C-alpha cells in the first residue's frame, strides 16, 4: 500500500479537517462526534441529512450547501456512520420543518440511520436510494445497492427543499428521482482500504469486474477486458433492461440525464471516451441526452473504473436539476 497517510486511525479526520479548511466559506466540521453541516443552517426548511461510509468523496460532504444537502455524517472508510453522529447533527441544526434522510441501500447504513431516526424527536422521512442495476432484485438480495444516482437525488431534492416545500413533497420527489435512475459500474482494479493495507479483491491484469459495487464488492461477472465500446454496450444494455423492468420509457421526449462517474483511479480522458461511446449508442436507439455530468462524483477510494447512470427526466426533475447549487463539488447558476 502506498498512500498519503499519517496514522491510519486519523485518515478520515485528517482529510475532513482539510475539507473544512479548504471550504470554510461553505461548511462547518464538528469533530466529537463527527458530522459536517452547511455553514449557514436555515432551520425553517426541510433538513436534508445524508451520510455513509467514507471513501466515496465527494459523496456526501462535497454536496453540502445552498441547493443541496444540510448535513453529512461520514463514517470510517466503507463503514456506515453511527447513530450518535446523526442525532448530534440534527440537534445542532434544530430543524423546524422535519428531517429527510437520504440513505444508500446498504444494510449497515439502513440500520444505523434507522436507529438514529428512532431516537430523535423531530418529524422524519427516509429516501432509500437503490439505483444499481447490477444486483438483481430477488429473494436472495437485500435489494439493489445505492450508488451514483444518489448524487442526482441529493441535487434535485436539495433544490425542492430550498424552495420551501414540505417534508412529504421532498420524500415523494426523492423516491421518484431514485426510481427514474439506473446505474452500472465496471472496475479495472481493486481499491485499498487504508486500515486494511491490502487490496480488497484481486483482479488480473487483463480482467474487469462487471457490475462492481462502490466498495469493490463483486458484481455480475469477471471477464476479459475488451474494447471500451463493447464494455459500454454491455453497460447500456444492463441499464436499459433495468428501465424496462421498472416499466419506464427512456425514449420519452424529456430525455435523460447522463452521468459518467469515475471511481477515482480512472482519468477524465477515459471518462469522456466512455461518454462518447454511450452517446453514440443512445443516439442509434433514439434516446435523447438532455443533461450531462462527467467526473468523479461517487468514488471508491483508489479504484480504477467507472459507472454510468441514466436518470429519466421530466419537467419537475429537470427544473430542480437546473436550479442553482453552491457546494464544494457541485456548483452552477450562481
Amino acid at each position, binding site marked *: 500500500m502506498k498512500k498519503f497517510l499519517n496514522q491510519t486511525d486519523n485518515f478520515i479526520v485528517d482529510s475532513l479537517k482539510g475539507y473544512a479548511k479548504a471550504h470554510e466559506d461553505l461548511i462547518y466540521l464538528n469533530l466529537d462526534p463527527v458530522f459536517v453541516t452547511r455553514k449557514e443552517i436555515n432551520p425553517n426548511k426541510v433538513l436534508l441529512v445524508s451520510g455513509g461510509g467514507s471513501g466515496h468523496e465527494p459523496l456526501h460532504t462535497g454536496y453540502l450547501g445552498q441547493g443541496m444537502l444540510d448535513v453529512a455524517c461520514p463514517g470510517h472508510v466503507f463503514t456506515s456512520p*453511527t447513530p450518535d453522529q446523526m442525532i448530534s447533527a440534527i440537534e445542532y441544526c434544530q430543524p423546524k420543518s422535519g428531517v429527510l434522510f437520504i440513505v444508500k441501500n446498504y444494510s449497515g447504513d439502513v440500520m444505523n440511520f434507522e436507529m438514529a431516526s428512532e431516537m430523535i424527536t423531530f418529524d422524519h422521512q427516509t429516501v432509500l436510494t437503490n439505483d444499481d442495476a447490477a444486483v438483481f432484485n430477488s429473494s436472495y438480495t437485500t435489494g439493489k445497492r445505492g450508488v451514483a444516482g444518489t448524487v442526482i437525488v441529493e441535487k434535485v431534492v436539495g433544490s425542492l427543499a430550498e424552495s420551501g416545500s414540505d417534508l412529504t413533497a421532498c420524500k415523494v420527489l426523492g423516491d421518484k428521482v431514485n426510481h427514474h435512475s439506473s446505474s452500472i459500474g465496471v472496475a479495472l482494479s481493486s481499491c485499498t482500504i487504508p486500515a486494511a493495507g491490502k487490496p480488497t479483491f484481486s483482479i488480473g491484469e487483463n480482467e474487469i469486474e462487471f457490475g462492481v459495487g462502490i466498495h469493490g464488492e463483486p458484481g455480475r461477472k469477471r471477464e476479459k477486458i475488451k474494447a471500451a465500446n463493447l464494455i459500454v454496450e454491455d453497460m447500456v444494455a444492463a441499464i436499459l433492461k433495468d428501465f424496462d423492468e421498472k416499466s419506464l420509457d427512456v425514449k420519452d421526449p424529456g430525455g435523460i440525464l447522463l452521468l459518467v462517474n469515475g471511481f477515482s483511479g480512472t482519468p477524465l480522458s477515459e471518462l469522456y471516451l466512455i461518454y462518447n461511446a454511450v452517446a453514440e449508442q443512445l443516439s442509434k436507439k433514439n434516446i435523447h441526452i438532455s443533461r450531462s455530468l462527467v467526473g468523479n462524483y461517487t468514488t471508491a477510494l483508489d479504484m480504477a473504473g467507472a459507472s454510468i447512470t441514466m436518470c429519466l427526466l421530466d419537467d419537475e426533475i429537470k427544473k430542480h436539476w437546473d436550479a442553482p447549487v453552491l457546494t464544494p463539488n457541485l456548483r452552477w447558476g450562481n
Partner: protein
Amino acid sequence: MKSDFIIQCIDNITNCIVESESEIESLDRVIGDGDHYINIKRGALAVQSIKGDLNHLTNAEAFKKIGMTIMSSVGGASGPLFASFFLALSKEVSDNDDLHKFSLGFSRGVESIMQRGKSKLGDKTMLDVLIPVSEKLQSLVKDGCEKNIMIKEIDLTAQAGVIATKDLIPAKGRSAGLAERAVGHIDPGAKTCQIIISTICNQLNKG
C-alpha cells in the same frame, strides 16, 4: 454473573479477536467488503476502554453501557446488530446469577438482531450461530443441565453453526450481491460470534 466476570471476558474476547485477525479478514475479503475485522476490533477496543466503569454497575447497567458503547463506535452492519443484542439483553438480566433470566435475555437479544437485520436462520449470517446457541441454551437451562456439560454443549453448537454457514447461499449483508459465489465460504459475522461464544465458554470453564 458479576461485573468482574464480564470484565475478564472483555479482555479475553478482545485478545481472541485480535489473534484471529487474518482468519476473519480473509473470510470477509472473499464474501464481504473487507471491513468486518476492523469494525469488530474497534468495537472490542472501545468496550475494553470503558471496562473500568463497569465495576460499579449492575449486570443490567453493564450490558446497557456495553451496548451504547458499541452503538456509537462500530458503525457498519455489525454496530447496530451487536448493540441491539446487548441493549435487549440488559433489559432481562438480574444480579443474582439467574440463568433462566440470562437465557431469556439472550434469546431477546437474538430476536432484536433478527428484527434489526430483518434476517432469519439460514440467511448465512451471525444468526446461524446465535439462533442454535440460543435454542440450546434455553433447553439446557430448562432441563437443569450441569454447568460443565452446558458449557461444552454451547461451545459445540456455536462451532457447528459456523461450519454450517459454509454451504448456505447468502440472503443478507453485502455478500448477498454475490449469491452463489459465496457458497463454500464461511460467513465472517458467524465466525466472529463463534469466537466470542467459545471465549466465554473457556472463561466459564476456568471460573
